[in-house]
């Protein structure tokens, strides 16, 4: 039980996928202008990542095994693409606004390196099924957490007297950097 908790805390805070591993930056920068969009993107990514980690574990262990290890990346990409497609259709049906807000970033979850990175890290760390699921879920929660916090900051920054050349993406990048700096405070918390 403690182990699972540590995995969760570790992936959400200490080894945060965006702030510490610096993965998944493109939706992090792209869909964080509005709070609702960030929450939506976080939820969609959480769904895809959790499902993706589980599915990729099954594929890795029951389909590929050690013989077909060279197919890992390829098959993971295919599976993730499938899940993203499914998510996209579901969101389009259930929430056209969210679909519109997420725009191009929704299909781009496929190429979100965090989404491919976590199943691959799972393989590397030799996680069992439950651990893989938790690792995927925790990573996604960490992603959502910093997305939402970042979106909150960016909404506030809209009113700030930021010097002209730093307006928009530039100050967002600096903020992301300083956030990453702050997250280093967690280092050493979980091995």
């Amino acid at each position, binding site marked *: 039980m403690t182990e699972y908790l540590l995995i969760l805390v570790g992936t959400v805070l200490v080894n945060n996928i965006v702030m510490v591993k610096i993965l998944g930056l493109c939706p992090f920068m792209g869909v964080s202008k509005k709070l609702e969009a960030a929450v939506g993107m976080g939820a969609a990514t959480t769904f895809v990542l959790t499902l993706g980690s589980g599915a990729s574990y099954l594929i890795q262990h029951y389909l590929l095994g050690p013989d077909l290890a060279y197919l890992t990346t390829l098959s993971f990409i295919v599976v993730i693409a499938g899940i993203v497609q499914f998510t996209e259709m579901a969101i389009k049906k259930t929430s056209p606004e969210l679909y519109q807000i997420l725009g191009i970033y929704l299909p781009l979850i496929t190429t979100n390196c965090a989404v491919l990175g976590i199943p691959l890290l799972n393989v590397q760390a030799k996680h069992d099924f439950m651990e893989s699921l938790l690792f995927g879920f925790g990573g996604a929660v960490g992603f959502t957490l910093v997305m939402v916090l970042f979106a909150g900051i960016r909404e*506030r920054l*809209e*009113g700030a*007297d930021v010097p002209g050349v730093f307006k928009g993406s530039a100050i967002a990048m600096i903020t992301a950097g300083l956030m990453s700096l702050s997250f280093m405070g967690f280092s050493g918390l979980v091995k």
Partner: protein
Amino acid sequence: MRQLFKFHGGVHPPTHKAESTRTPIAQAKMPSRLVIPLHQHVGNRAVPVVQVGERVLKGQIIGRPDGRLSSAVHASTSGTVSAIDMQLVAHFSGLPDLCITLIPDGRDEWIEHSGVDYKQTPHTELRHLLREAGVVGLGGAVFPSDLKSYSNKHKIKTLVLNGAECEPYITCDDLLMRERAGDTLRGAEVLRELLYAEEVLIGIEDNKPEAIAAMKKAVEQDGHQHMEVIAVPTLYPGGGAKQLIRVLTGIEVAAGVRSTEKGVQCFNVATAWSTWRAIAHGEPLLSRIVTVTGNVEHAQNFEVLLGTPVEELVAQAGSRPDTNRHIMGGPMMGVDLPSGQVGVTKATNCIIEGSDKLFPPPAPALPCIRCTRCADVCPADLQPQDLYWFAKSNNFGKTQEFHLFDCIECGACAYVCPSHIPLVQYYRYAKSEIWQREREAQSAEVARERHEYRQFRIEREKQEKAERLAQKEKAALAAKPAVPAPLPVAAAPNADPDDTLQMRVDADVAKANLQLRIDAAVARAKEQAATAKPRNTDALTPAQQAEIAEIEARRAKLREMASGAGADDEPPKHN
């Protein structure tokens, strides 16, 4: 001892009330002219019903209420109407509005008037009298009192009589209560009757002991059963209607909610007095008590005819030479008047003469440091620093999310701001921008409807025309085999192919005629225009000509597209 409630925040600015309470209310001198705005109340501007040059009597209606939410305007004295035109008025914008200028004849001759016994008069009649007398809320909101004295099915428990007068400098209600407590309470009794209220709570801030004593004495003397005079703690803006209701009853009336829905109604003491004058004596609202204070030799309260130019009024209090502004109202919510020529209105409770010494110009504003002193004093429990943040960056949607429209613009936040940010001005700016957007959205909606209806109409006309044509042709086809038939009736006149042809020819002729007529008219107009004045397309700058050419091109393209679309649509059908 009655339990009093608290509202959040509030400030204690220096009151400066003692200056103007030393002497009793004085009658202001008859001015040389009266500038009476037709818009002295909430709602529609009154419609002038007199002519320039007409002689009017004191109390005669010169502006009729326009619509339900409006009020009457009267001649404050007898004299001659010298102008009905745009004059500067007491408004934040400093823009002119329609006013009637009256030259007094000095005779102060009343129109025939008489009061009624309110106990014997039906309520609708009483409310009508109030409306005709132009009685509006004199606390500053100037909402027509006839509308406020109607409970509209809501059970009113409490009538709050507002004598709090929380703004610094202003003492007109204080003096009114000291000197005219009896009539004020009688007026309150009328209003209580109209609302069927169970009790009247008279809230007076505890920095006015004389007024409290006078009102208490009057309640006792006249034996008012349901009335209670209550001293409330001095705390700005404790005299705001919502705040006073909260303090006296514990009820909170949110923005956009009528207090009657919560069983409370609130009137200013001066309104109650005017109500009594209007009902019992038939005297319309012609004058009011105005505190003249600030940078003057002897601050005092005056009974002033509505329309009296501010300059003539302040001269009577000895306005000092270094005065550089007239502020109408208090220092927290008042209006900086655009000119001394502005006439006193029903909303003018106070004129403060300002100088740089008395009101130093604001220090330059620094950025907000989110110290939340503003939030600590906000009587509406808002977060002024957030409202400012979003108003500053034109993020109006967010300002509304943070309840911008619950702001009562009391100015407490700007008063305490260590960065000296003109917070209230930001809120007013944001509010008026939002209102404008709403107006625009509404007119866009109307335009859309009109456009869609027009398209529907054109489509329908087209279809009808096509149907008519089709019918004619069908009838013509049917008529041909029917020719041998002996029945001439069957051959309807317009079923004849020749007839149809004839019609077409007719149409062509008509068209040609129209064209001829147009041409002739064009020639005529051109001639006329040439003699009368230059055409608007003459003497154009190249830029304007380019613009016209561009519009022409756009039109041509539109026509083309429209005809293209029309061709696609043949035969007409809705998809």
